[in-house]
């Protein structure tokens, strides 16, 4: 289980995250929604240990998070890959690093679920569309069956149909393999449909944490309400959800 305990993070002279407490058990998904620039990517960096919290602690099963080799799906899909390597080489890198072999059926299953033709993996990052690169990023994150996966806007470049297939693959694998997932997203419809819990972040603070169902029915914070209503008015969520 991932535990974020009263964490505050400073960036320069300002406070980027203030007194954040969250936890994600095995096989559960927490969606973090909120304002552009609220500190969502900072939270991911802090979990990965790339930024040191000024106060508080982040642990995985009581130990440092790095001990579980968490996987990350980056927000900027194409630049997440080495531009001169084929996507296949980049995808297989986490496996080769562990010295284990490459399960062909696993790659096939993931590619099918992500609606990627396997041929795409032989190209370089600049030779695929941004939505394709985003899905290859998900493939790379999930390939070695990590216990903790951090997703930064994993569906932001995808159309509605591809979003649903991709979301389903992530959720299916999570229940089969039991990884804990943290998903940063602007898409309230996605969060409600696929997360167990939703945390609303605004200006570096948590406004509310609720189960997806109760958030959809009645957000407790006024910012949560605004976000949910925006999703309804865009047609991404039902009023009666």
């Amino acid at each position: 289980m991932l535990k974020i305990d009263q964490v505050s993070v400073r960036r320069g002279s300002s406070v980027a995250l203030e007194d954040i407490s969250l936890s994600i058990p095995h096989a559960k998904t927490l969606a973090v929604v909120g304002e552009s620039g609220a500190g969502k990517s900072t939270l991911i960096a802090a979990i990965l240990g790339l930024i040191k919290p000024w106060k508080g602690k982040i642990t995985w099963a009581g130990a440092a998070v790095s001990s579980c080799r968490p996987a990350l799906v980056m927000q900027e899909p194409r630049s997440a890959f080495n531009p001169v390597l084929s996507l296949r080489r980049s995808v297989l890198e986490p496996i080769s690093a562990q010295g284990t072999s490459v399960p062909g059926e696993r790659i096939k299953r993931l590619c099918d679920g992500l609606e990627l033709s396997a041929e795409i993996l032989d190209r370089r990052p600049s030779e695929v569309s941004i939505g394709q690169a985003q899905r290859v990023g998900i493939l790379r994150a999930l390939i070695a069956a990590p216990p903790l996966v951090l997703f930064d806007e994993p569906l932001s470049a995808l159309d509605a149909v591809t979003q649903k297939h991709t979301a389903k693959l992530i959720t299916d694998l999570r229940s089969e393999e039991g990884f804990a997932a943290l998903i940063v997203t602007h898409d309230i419809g996605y969060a409600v449909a696929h997360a167990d819990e939703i945390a609303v972040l605004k200006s570096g603070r948590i406004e509310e944490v609720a189960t997806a169902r109760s958030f959809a029915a009645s957000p407790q914070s006024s910012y949560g309400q605004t976000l949910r209503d925006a999703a309804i008015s865009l047609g991404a969520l039902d009023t009666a959800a």
Partner: protein
Amino acid sequence: MTLRVSGLSAMRSGRTILHPTSLTIEPRARIGLVGTSGSGKSTLGHALIDDLRAQGHSVAHVPQSPDEALDPLRSMAFHWREAEWALGLQPGSADQKTLFTALKIAGGDLRKRPWGWSRGMQQRFVIAMALIGSPDLIVLDEPTSALDPVVAAATMDLLDRHLEGRATAMMLITHDLGLAARRVSTLMVMQEGRIVEQAPTAEILERPKTRASKSLTAHRNWMALPC
């Protein structure tokens, strides 16, 4: 001025990724380009921009990834000066303050390089650069993909206000039909490198004709229709 391109196409690694496409864009047009991931939307956007620029038209572009527009080694201030210079404007003559305030990025530090700004802020900075002048066409490729719904709506409102009263046409490339429904009057649907459907937005949303538009409209809502 009416913009015309004909026979646009693109091949990469021996594959045709854009089949010959001709378009006519009237002044003040509001066009949405939708389609599944990889259907060729960005490719068409790039080909259209290159062709129109070669014809001597002015076209502003907000690429899908801010990385395409921002040099990682240059400060944000440098990018802004370049954008003014490209339009033949004196440095500092564009109304940066009003644009930045409306886009809620007035707090960004212009001395920093792109990675000193969040991805959503970079996206809005690139939109602000595209709004400096009055081009014949502005092409926006997924301009709100890194923005929360509230900021996304505010950004699109600014764009509407900005275009009001100008002859500038807009092409909005988006995967978000909810966004398209509110912002464009015509939709073009792409599939496998071709425009397969083109009609008034309301008509496509209510009576989609092709497989591509049917599945895109059917899956708009997260709760309806499992895949």
